[in-house]
């Protein structure tokens, strides 16, 4: 049987012991990059945004040196900046290139897992070419071990493709939401192009043309290109599969379909006009649809343009500009930090290599030998489980989880499919202004609606795994048909998911055809 895999490589059967990726905690994800040539894989193996496996170990940071933008997107509002809000296009403080350098060196010295520095805004980096390239120039000189990335809407990309190549920026992300100008006109109200504000279908046509040309120019120069697309229900949802096909044909190596964020309080066009955001299921369905065409990214957290640290754990508040300003560049022994960083990175890479080797050494398990109790029965149905994970293990209290990792267990094994956020980006004045620090209050202590909302985000899941869970949420989850499970605390996520799946199978719970649930779609 064919497994739903997230790359276009032939599916590799998983081992009953959890696909061998147990300590990485993200399913079969490493195989998502399996179709890449070795030299590209070597480039991305320690890049937290590109490699699902790497994002548990390696950290990244964005420096917000690029405030200006040259287009308007209907999901963006440049007026809004709330410290509690986390989404692209928003930052708390814009840095000068010199401040950015200082911040990068300080963070890289403090967080040895940091491998990647990106410039992602809060506007468009290529609409701020002076500040963007000055930052890259200085960093290439002072921190040669850090990978440089840039994100762009693509409008100015053809103009700067050579400059990007010059600074050895080998990862570029282009946000491409459409390749049809009629659809584009519903996403982009205007662009600034050749000294004029251009509107309507014409503006979308120019933007698309520049994006596609830029994509081709970058891949021709050997620069890795990831494409981001925002899934906007009713606007480009049916179109994105075609986008995926076209950008892959032009050499993009990864496609990241992200859900639209459209809260009315953000004041965006879509937010105010009541445009719906996709449900977790809609997003997952589209990601699965596109996955036949190219590697999909499922661990993206839609970072702010000033995010710092591991994905999903923003440490930006530790490195605010008033703290950085007190530092002198002389205080940072970057040479020593670089040595230490290399040791840390090598150790992580070694560990990942060993895990891969172990995975390869495992015998193929899917012979369908139902006599072996270790094997999964091919007749079992597919189940979605939510995990309150931390560092690759079932390590989070249900009430403290800001997001749940969604895993799919099937006779083919376990795979990571998505993550779902629990709270709102900004829940109002009471919590506003506290920065990005996680408020440690238990969901059970908060108003019921928060718990209800959290449970609603788990729609389609039959089990939720966590390290601990309170009495009240336990009851509510059960009442909603989701089985809480705290028996696998601190176990590697995949092992835990697989163990629960087997328990369900042994108990005869997997023989029935599933009720109408998200998991039913995935049954092979």
């Amino acid at each position, binding site marked *: 049987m064919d497994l739903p895999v997230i790359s276009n490589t032939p599916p590799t059967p998983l081992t009953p012991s959890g696909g061998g990726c147990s300590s990485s905690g993200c399913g079969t994800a490493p195989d998502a990059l399996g179709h890449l040539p070795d030299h590209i894989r070597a480039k991305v193996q320690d890049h937290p945004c590109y490699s699902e496996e790497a994002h548990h170990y390696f950290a990244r940071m964005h420096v917000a040196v690029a405030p*200006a933008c040259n287009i*308007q997107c209907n999901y963006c509002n*440049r007026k809004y900046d709330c410290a509690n809000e986390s989404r692209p296009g928003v930052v708390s403080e*814009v840095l000068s290139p010199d401040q950015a350098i200082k911040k990068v060196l300080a963070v890289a010295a403090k967080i040895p897992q940091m491998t990647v520095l990106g410039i992602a805004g809060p506007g468009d980096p290529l*609409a701020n070419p002076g500040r963007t390239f000055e930052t890259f120039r200085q960093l290439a000189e002072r921190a040669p071990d850090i990978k440089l990335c840039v994100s762009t809407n693509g409008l100015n990309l053809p103009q700067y493709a050579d400059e990007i190549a010059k600074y050895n920026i080998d990862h570029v992300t282009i946000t491409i939401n459409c390749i049809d100008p009629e659809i584009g006109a519903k996403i982009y109200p205007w662009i600034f192009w050749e000294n004029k504000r251009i509107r309507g279908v014409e503006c979308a046509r120019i933007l698309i043309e520049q994006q596609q040309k830029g994509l081709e120019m970058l891949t021709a120069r050997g620069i890795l290109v990831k494409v981001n697309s925002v899934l906007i229900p009713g606007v480009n949802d049916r179109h994105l599969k075609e986008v995926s096909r076209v950008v892959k044909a032009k050499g993009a190596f990864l496609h990241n379909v992200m859900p639209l964020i459209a809260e009315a309080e953000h004041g965006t066009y879509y937010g105010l006009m009541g445009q719906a955001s996709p449900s977790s299921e809609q997003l997952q369905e589209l990601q699965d649809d596109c996955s036949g065409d190219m590697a999909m990214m499922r661990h993206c957290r839609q970072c702010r343009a000033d995010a710092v640290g591991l994905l999903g754990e923003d440490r930006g508040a530790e490195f605010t500009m008033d703290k950085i300003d007190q530092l002198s560049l002389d205080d940072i022994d970057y040479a020593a930090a670089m040595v230490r960083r290399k040791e840390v990175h090598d150790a992580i890479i070694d560990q990942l290599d060993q895990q891969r080797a172990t995975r390869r050494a495992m015998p193929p398990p899917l012979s369908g030998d139902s006599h072996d109790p270790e094997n999964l029965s091919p007749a079992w149905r597919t189940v979605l489980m939510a995990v309150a994970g931390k560092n690759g293990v079932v390590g989070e209290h249900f009430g403290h989880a800001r997001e749940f990792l969604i895993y799919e267990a099937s006779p083919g094994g376990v795979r990571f499919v998505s993550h779902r956020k629990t709270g709102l980006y900004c829940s109002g004045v009471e919590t506003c202004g506290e920065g990005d620090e996680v408020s440690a209050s238990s969901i059970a202590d908060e108003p019921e609606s928060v718990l209800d909302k959290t449970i609603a985000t788990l729609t389609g899941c039959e089990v939720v795994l966590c390290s601990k869970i309170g009495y009240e949420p336990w009851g509510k989850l059960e009442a909603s048909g989701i089985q809480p499970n705290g028996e696998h605390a601190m176990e590697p996520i995949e092992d835990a998911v697989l163990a629960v799946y087997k328990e369900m199978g042994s108990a005869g719970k997997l023989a029935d055809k599933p009720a109408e649930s998200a998991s039913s779609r995935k049954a092979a």
Partner: protein
Amino acid sequence: MALQIVHACVNCCACVEVCPNEAIYADTPHFLIDEAKCTECLGEYADPQCAAICPIECAIVNELGDPLNPPGSLTGIPLEKLIELGLYKAAA
């Protein structure tokens, strides 16, 4: 004659990048236009460049105080909607 940047400005710098006269400078709480340098781009471009790239409605005004990008003109949000949401006043 000169254009003016007013309180709605969010300091995004976009206008600084495109002003042909280098007339725009950073100030607190927002960017300002040096009226001695501003030509409103007459004779150079069909539209004043700052107002042609500015993403914020009502942030740039002419000598009469009229916004070059009035409410709804950049976001496409209908005026009735802005009024209904109580945002028209804030924008204008």
